[in-house]
C-alpha cells in the first residue's frame, strides 16, 4: 500500500488574508498569461503595427507625422493606442471569467478557503499587468521612433496620453471582465466584447452624435477620445458645428470629450462594471 508521506504536518496551515490571496491568484494567472499563446499573439500584433508604422514613416516621410514632435506622437500613438488597448481587453479579459466555467479551471481554483472576489481581483490584476507589459513595449517603440526623428525631447502631452491610455486600459478590462462574468461560454464573451469595442461602440457613438444630435457621454470609446485629443497642438473644442452634405445640408454638431469628462466616463465605466462583474461572479453557479 502507498503511504501518504505528508502524514504529520509540522505546523498548522494559516489561511492567509484575502489581499494576500489576491496576490497569489494574480501571480499564477500572470504566469499563465505570460506563457500563453494570446500573449505571444498580442506581442506579434504590436510589433507588426510598429514595424508597419516604422516602414511607412521612414519610407514615405508623411508630413502629418513629421511636422513636429507633437504631430508625430499624435499620428503614431493617437491613432493606434485606443485600438490596441481595446485589443488587450478582448484578449485578456474576454474569457477571463467565463473560462473558469467553460474550461473548468474554476473547479481547481475555487473550492478552497478563498473568496470569489479574491479570485476575480487577482485575475483582473494579472490581466492588467500582462496588458501593461505589452503597452510598455508599444510605448518604448513609439519613443524610439520619436527620438530618431525629433531627438530625446518628448512633449509632455505624450506622457499624459500614455497615462490616459493606461486609465482607459483599466476601464476596458473592467468592462471585458464584466461581460466575461455574464457568460459561461468563452466564445460568446470574447465575441460580444470584440463586437462592442471594435464596431458597436463606434457605431453607436456616430449615430447618437450625428443623427440624434446628443453628446454620447455614455459611451466608453467617446471618453477614450481624450487619449488622442491631448496630443493636438490645441485641445479640440468641446463642440464644433459643421454643415452637412449639399448646399442646404443640415447643421451638425460634433462632440469632443473634455479631459475631465473623458476621465469621468472612464472612471464611471470601471467602477460600475467592476462592481457588476464582481456581483455576477459571486452569484454565478458552477452547474
Amino acid at each position: 500500500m502507498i503511504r501518504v508521506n505528508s502524514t504529520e504536518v509540522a505546523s498548522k496551515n494559516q489561511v492567509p488574508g484575502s489581499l494576500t490571496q489576491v496576490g497569489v491568484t494574480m501571480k499564477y494567472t500572470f504566469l499563465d498569461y505570460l506563457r500563453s499563446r494570446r500573449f505571444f499573439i498580442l506581442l506579434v500584433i504590436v510589433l507588426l503595427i510598429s514595424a508597419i508604422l516604422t516602414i511607412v514613416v521612414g519610407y514615405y516621410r508623411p508630413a502629418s507625422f513629421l511636422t513636429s514632435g507633437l504631430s508625430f506622437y499624435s499620428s503614431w500613438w493617437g491613432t493606434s493606442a485606443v485600438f490596441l488597448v481595446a485589443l488587450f481587453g478582448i484578449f485578456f479579459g474576454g474569457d477571463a471569467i467565463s473560462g473558469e466555467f467553460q474550461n473548468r479551471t474554476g473547479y481547481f481554483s475555487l473550492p478552497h478557503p478563498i473568496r470569489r472576489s479574491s479570485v476575480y481581483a487577482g485575475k483582473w490584476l494579472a490581466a492588467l499587468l500582462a496588458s501593461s507589459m505589452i503597452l510598455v513595449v508599444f510605448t518604448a517603440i513609439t519613443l524610439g521612433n520619436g527620438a530618431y526623428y525629433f531627438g530625446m525631447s518628448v512633449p509632455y502631452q505624450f506622457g499624459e496620453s500614455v497615462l490616459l491610455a493606461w486609465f482607459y486600459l483599466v476601464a476596458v478590462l473592467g468592462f471585458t471582465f464584466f461581460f466575461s462574468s455574464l457568460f459561461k461560454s468563452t466564445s460568446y464573451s470574447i465575441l460580444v466584447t470584440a463586437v462592442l469595442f471594435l464596431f458597436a461602440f463606434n457605431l453607436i457613438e456616430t449615430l447618437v452624435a450625428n443623427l440624434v444630435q446628443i453628446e454620447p457621454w455614455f459611451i466608453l470609446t467617446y471618453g477614450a477620445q481624450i487619449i488622442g485629443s491631448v496630443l493636438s497642438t490645441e485641445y479640440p473644442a468641446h463642440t464644433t458645428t459643421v454643415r452637412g452634405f449639399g448646399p442646404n445640408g443640415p447643421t451638425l454638431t460634433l462632440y469632443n470629450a473634455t479631459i475631465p469628462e473623458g476621465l469621468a466616463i472612464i472612471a464611471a465605466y470601471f467602477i460600475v462594471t467592476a462592481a457588476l462583474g464582481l456581483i455576477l461572479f459571486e452569484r454565478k453557479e458552477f452547474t
Partner: protein
Amino acid sequence: MNEPSIQAVGLTKRYGSFTALDSLNLNIERSKCVGFLGPNGAGKTTTLKLFTDLIRASSGEALVNGVNVHTRKKKALESVGTLIETPEIYPSLTPREALSMVAETRGVPAAERKKRIEDVVTEVRMDEWVDKRVGKFSKGMKQRINIAAALLSDPRIFLLDEPSTGLDPRGMSEVRDIVKSLKGKQRLIFMSSHLLSEVTDICDEVAMIDHGKLLVYDTLSNVTSRFSGGENIVEVGFLRPLDGGVNGRIASGVPGVTSAERVDDRTLRIRFNGGASTQERLLSNLVGMNLGVISYKPASSALEDVYLSLIKDTK
C-alpha cells in the same frame, strides 16, 4: 481538537421546477470513509458542490465542522480537501506551480511548501512530470494532480467526487490505496462513486441517494444486512480449485451459513446470518477445513443487490 464533521440540514437545490436535491439531512462525524452512491443525476455532485460553495442552496445549510459553507466559506473550507468534477488546471502552469498556487492559497507554511509538494507528487506518481506544463497532460494525469492538490494541505476532511474517474486500472487501485491510507490518518472522507466494488473495498459507511432524496445512510454491513433480510455475503477466494461437494459441506456444516454458491472454481459467495462473531467463526471454520483460503471480503454484489433494490424502488 474537535472531531471533523460535515452536516447537511434540510439541504435543497432547485433548478426552476426541477429539484436536484430534496431536503437532504445528513450528519457525518469522526474519521471514517463514507461512500456516496446513486445513479447519474441523483444529486451526488450537487451535494458536493453545495459543500464547496460552487453552487448555492435553495434552502437549508451545508455545514463543515459546524460552519456554514456559503456564509463563511474561508473558515469552513480551511480544513477541507476537495476534488469536484475533474477540474482543469491553467494549461501553461506546471504541476509544481499549480500546487504552489494551492499551497499559498491555503496558507501552507513557506518552509514546508516545497517538501509537501514533492511528497504529494510522489504520492500520485507524477514525479517525472512535476516541471512539465499541464496543458499536454492526459485526463488521468490531470486527475492525479487534482488528487495531489486535495492532499496538499493535509486537511482533516476530504470531499471527493468520483476520484478515480479518468484513471487507468492501476491509477484506480492507487487512488484506493491513497484513500485507505487517509483512513489510517484519522481523516473524514466523503466520496461519491459509481464503483460499488471500490466503495465496498474502502468505505466504512454508505449513503445512497436517488432523485435528490437520501435513501439510506448506515454502516456498510448494516446496509447490506438490513436490505438482504439480515443476511451478510462474503466472497472467499481459494488457492486451489474447489471440489464439487465443498459448497454443500460449507452450507450444511458451518453454523449460520444459509448458502454457498460458486462464483468460479476458486471463489465462493457465502451467505450467512449474524454479525461479526459469526463472520469470525465462519472464517475460522473455513481455514480449519484446509481449503487454502487466500482472501475473505464482503461481497460487492451484496451492496449491488441493495443498490439495485433501493434504486428500483424509487423509480
